[in-house]
């Protein structure tokens, strides 16, 4: 055989190999040839989203690569309660399920497959460790992972830009601008902030509170102090509580008004809050759009709510425009606090465990996950998650932190949340002094100190 012929064959083989590689991968995903060559399977993925288009898109891509596999997404209502029932169903087994963080007390724990023990069958090397760590917990036999966060979540403000524009206001970029906006809104007869007290304070200020710890000049020392709940540690968070207290004092957030006039916000369901934000009201037993301007200027919430808002806006043909911003609670803008979104887990009862794990491998491939996060309005669970936030929200690294940096040995989040709820309710007569005046800020700071003190070591 001549050298020319050998060379030509080599070139052809290389081309074919490159072609096969290109066909067989989704930008870094390596096709599992063993599964690709196996028989037909049908997997069931259950979740709480009635319309999970981002996930459908991933499923579609996966099933294109593996034509012998089909995955059905099944919507299950009242997910928190029905999930264990559904997972326990041996007649109609689920293979994968969407879940919150599965910890030792989770009802889904008995039905979830431990993932770290799956060896090379699971490859989540492209994910962001800061998000994964939060989903791991130290069980009796060491570190366990039962679900992987599908994306990351941010807390911030939804700003009704239509309403602001109608009053000649721009989206605020600093605390001063935010306060100026609130004053103008108040004068125009609006209550600037709306929302359930359970989500209001947290949505508005938790990123700032976390940043006070994570981005402090002496992070190890500060972390240690917060973790140990050292005496006087509540003072660290005073700047945030001052802001919230000031907002309550000036009735930028009015809990009494929420209870009496904006009942929907008493309910923390996302779709009811979305309806209220977009001024969709119940009329003759049916929801209808009240106007195309709305009554709510600022709604604290999470980034993933945007999907609900978008859907509600579409359903009711609302013309209200809105924007998600990091709450500008400092002179230099807002803070980003990255926490895990919902996770995806493999059912331990799955008869197609290899396929389910392979789906996770595919799902957590960089490009696939970025596309999913984009459709889901989340932060990609990829190694560059923090860079992504910095680019998207144009903030400095000192304003960014993530859950892992503020995870302590006690329920820090719950403690702070309760304290923030208390301040949020401060202007409600029910929670005022007997003389009808608000408690001073120090009262709430003392309460916070007491709450933290119970975890003091």
């Amino acid at each position, binding site marked *: 055989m001549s050298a020319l012929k050998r060379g030509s064959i080599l070139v052809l083989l290389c081309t074919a190999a490159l072609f096969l590689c290109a066909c067989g991968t989704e930008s870094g995903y390596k096709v599992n040839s063993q599964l690709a060559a196996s028989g037909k399977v049908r997997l069931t993925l259950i979740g709480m989203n009635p*319309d999970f288009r981002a996930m*459908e898109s991933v499923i579609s891509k996966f099933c294109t690569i593996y034509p012998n596999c089909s995955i059905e997404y*099944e*919507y299950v*209502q*009242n997910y928190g309660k029905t999930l*264990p029932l*559904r997972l326990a*169903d041996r007649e109609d087994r689920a293979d994968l399920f969407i879940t919150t963080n599965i910890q030792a007390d989770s009802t889904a724990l008995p039905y979830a497959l431990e993932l770290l023990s799956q060896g090379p069958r699971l490859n989540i090397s492209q994910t962001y460790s800061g998000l994964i760590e939060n989903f791991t917990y130290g069980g009796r036999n060491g570190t366990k992972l039962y679900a992987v966060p599908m994306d990351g979540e941010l807390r911030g403000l939804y700003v009704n830009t239509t309403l602001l524009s109608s009053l000649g206001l721009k989206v605020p970029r600093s605390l001063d601008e935010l306060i100026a906006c609130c004053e103008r809104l108040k004068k125009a007869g609006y209550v600037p902030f709306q929302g359930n007290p359970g989500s209001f304070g947290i949505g508005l200020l938790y990123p700032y509170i976390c940043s006070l710890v994570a981005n402090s000049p002496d992070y190890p020392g500060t972390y240690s102090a917060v973790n140990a709940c050292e005496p006087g540690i509540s003072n660290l968070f005073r700047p945030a509580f001052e802001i919230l207290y000031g907002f309550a004092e000036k009735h930028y957030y009015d809990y009494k008004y929420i209870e009496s006039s904006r009942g929907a916000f008493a309910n923390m369901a996302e779709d*009811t809050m979305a309806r209220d934000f977009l001024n969709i009201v119940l009329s003759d037993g049916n929801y209808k759009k009240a106007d195309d301007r709305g009554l709510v200027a600022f709604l604290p919430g999470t980034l993933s709510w945007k999907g609900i808002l978008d859907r509600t806006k579409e359903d009711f043909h609302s013309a209200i425009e809105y924007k998600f911003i990091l709450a500008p609670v400092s002179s230099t803008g807002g803070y980003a606090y990255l926490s895990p979104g919902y996770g995806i887990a493999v059912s331990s009862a799955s008869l197609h465990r290899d396929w389910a794990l392979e789906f996770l491998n595919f799902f957590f491939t960089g490009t696939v996950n970025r596309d999913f996060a984009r459709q889901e309005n989340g932060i990609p669970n990829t190694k560059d998650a923090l860079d992504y936030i910095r680019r998207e929200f144009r903030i400095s690294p000192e304003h960014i932190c993530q859950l892992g940096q503020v995870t302590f040995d006690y329920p820090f989040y719950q403690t702070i949340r309760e304290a923030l709820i208390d301040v949020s309710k401060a202007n409600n007569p029910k929670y005022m002094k007997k003389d009808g005046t608000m408690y001073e800020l120090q009262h709430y700071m003392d309460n916070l100190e007491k709450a933290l003190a119970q975890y003091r070591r």
Partner: protein
Amino acid sequence: MSFSIIWTIWRKRLHSTDAEKTQRRFQRSGNRGLWKRRLHSSHHTLWLAAGNAIIVILIIVIFIAFAGSSRQKMYEQNISDIRNINRSAANISSDFFLNQRSRLINASEYIRLKNLDYDEALDYIATVETGSAGSFELLDSGARGFASLRKNAGFIPVEYRSPDYERLMKICAESGSAQKQNTVFFTPEFTDSLNARNSFAFYRYIALSRRQNGAPPQIHNYTLLSICRTKQYRGLLETDSGYRDLATALVNRQGDYVIADSAFKSDNLFRYFYVFNNLSLEERMRLESEFPADGGGIYYLKDAGGRDSVFVYASVPGTDWIAVSSVPLSSFHNSRLDLSFTLIIALLLIALMLMNMLWLEGINRRLEESAQREKEASAAKTDFLSRMSHDIRTPLNVIIGTTILAEDIPENPPETAKYLRNIEQSGSFLAALVNDILDLNKVESGKMELHLQPYSASQFRQGISAIIQPLCDKKNIAFSIEGDDSTPPLMLDRMRINQIFYNILSNSVKFTSEGGWIKLSYSLSFAGPAREADSGDRAGGRQARIEFAAADNGSGMSTEFQRHMFEAFSQESPSMRPAIQGTGLGLAIVKNLVDLMKGSIQVESLPGKGTVFHIVLPAETAPQSLIERPVAGSVLPLGGRHILLCEDNPLNSEIARKILETKGMTVDCAEDGRQGLEKFSASPGFFYDAVLMDMMMPVMNGLDASRAIRALPRPDARLIPIIAMTANAYDIDVRNSLDAGMNAHLAKPIEPQILFSTLAAQIALAAQAYDRGRKV
């Protein structure tokens, strides 16, 4: 296909030997009529090509039209099938729902008629058979209650109190509505809190008395649900429709799903369309406003997988719902081959084939007719040329022969001798011209055949020297032949090989000045491995290659002439060469002969310097059985030999006799073949040494006479050499003479040297044969 056939035919016609020959004949003869026929044929070809093109275009058009129509037909058939499936789903749903509804009505009516209280009602519904996939649930206005399944001492509690159950909560909250008390309603699909299975339910409001916490019984409003598992219902719809990814959903008039296959996304049909088709709000609203159309409808939209799909819908009888079925277009059944279409295409192809066959038949017929006409014309021409050749050669033979004889008269005055020499030279030139013209005609008309026989290098050397050496001697030109004479004899046409080199070397003599030189060299090479020399290559057939080089230092040729040197009648311009007599046919004949022998010829020439001809000829070695032993023909004395000369022309007879007598031979003359036969018959055995036989003679021609002599029952009849000496110089004449039993053929005008050498050789061969016969 048709075009390829036409092209092939065209190409064959254009490249066929017949076509070339015909074309050359046309060119030579200037037969305009044949050209017209050719043009007429081209015209036919164009028509045929046009016909083929039209049929092919027709096939394509029909195919496209059919494909379009078939696709449309098939598409409509698919739509019709899907509509039927959809209607079937609607009817199945209707039956199923009516059944479930009846069960609910029966249960609720029983409770009402029996005036059962809450606990009794629960006990009762726990006994009602609802099928494996369903159960009853009794809920209060707060969406809390029990399933009709016992667990431990009581019933399993169920609760629908989360935002996800907003619609169910609303249903339960309305249980007090008096207007709705006797109506059966239907819930949208929900997750059964009992088992987390996707379910739907018929429900009815009922009022039951209930005792709580020891208080007196009070009437409360409840919602009684007859729950069915969605999967069970879907199972009823799953038929082997043949459509991959067929999905069905039940929706209300607003498009909200009542029960939907998982392929239907979102919670509303139009939201699904809106989201997955990137519709504008206006488009979505238009779709919603037009829904549902009476008698059903169809949408062409993308499904959740981005595939173009059809969504067909129809009302579910007995309900206010609409059954929607979706199928991706990619799942549509492929069109089947239509018989009529196949027949049409087949008929068209048959028509095309017949047309082409008829056309080919016509071409063949015309070619055959043309060939026949050509054959006839050729035969007539050959006959004409043969006669002309004979009629020219006969007097020419007399002129040359008489002149030669006259030259031998010693008393001729010098002037007379000079005139005789001139006559002889002119006669020889005229004879050469006649020979060349006939040869060229034979070669170009493809009638020249090669008569292969063993030919050794020494024979070749002798043959060439015998002719060329005297010519060179006359001009004081040094002539030499170089080559290895020990090479085995090859199968060659002696006469034509010699003719090639006579022509080339005689040209060299003509164009080389006195004192010059001419060299002929040859060498032999064999293809393949050498065989053992001693074996003598008895079988022959070994491929060989002879390379000749004929060089001179003559006047050479101009570059311009070299381009045309092989064309007939082309001659170097007089300015380049001295005026030398020639026909301009010699090199044309050489080229044709070399081509006929599948050889090659190349020329190197410089004006004033000389010329070298390189000729390469393929040949095979001669088998031993055919190789003649050397005969000393040239040295065999001819004096005293008895020759029987059969010649009807007295002058020719006289000349031949005189020529023969110059060598001391005794000649008996016969005026025709019959006389010759009689003379031979009457002669004693082995009296005559040879017979010289003219061909065209009265009474009995030379061929018949030869056959008759060979047929005589006497020993010398078979051995005596009979040599045709005739003006019939065509190959066919040569072949005829040999077939008639003659041993050699000499064309008139007679060249005495050739006549003598032929006689000597043939007599020697006969003697050898006689000796062999005697020994045997």
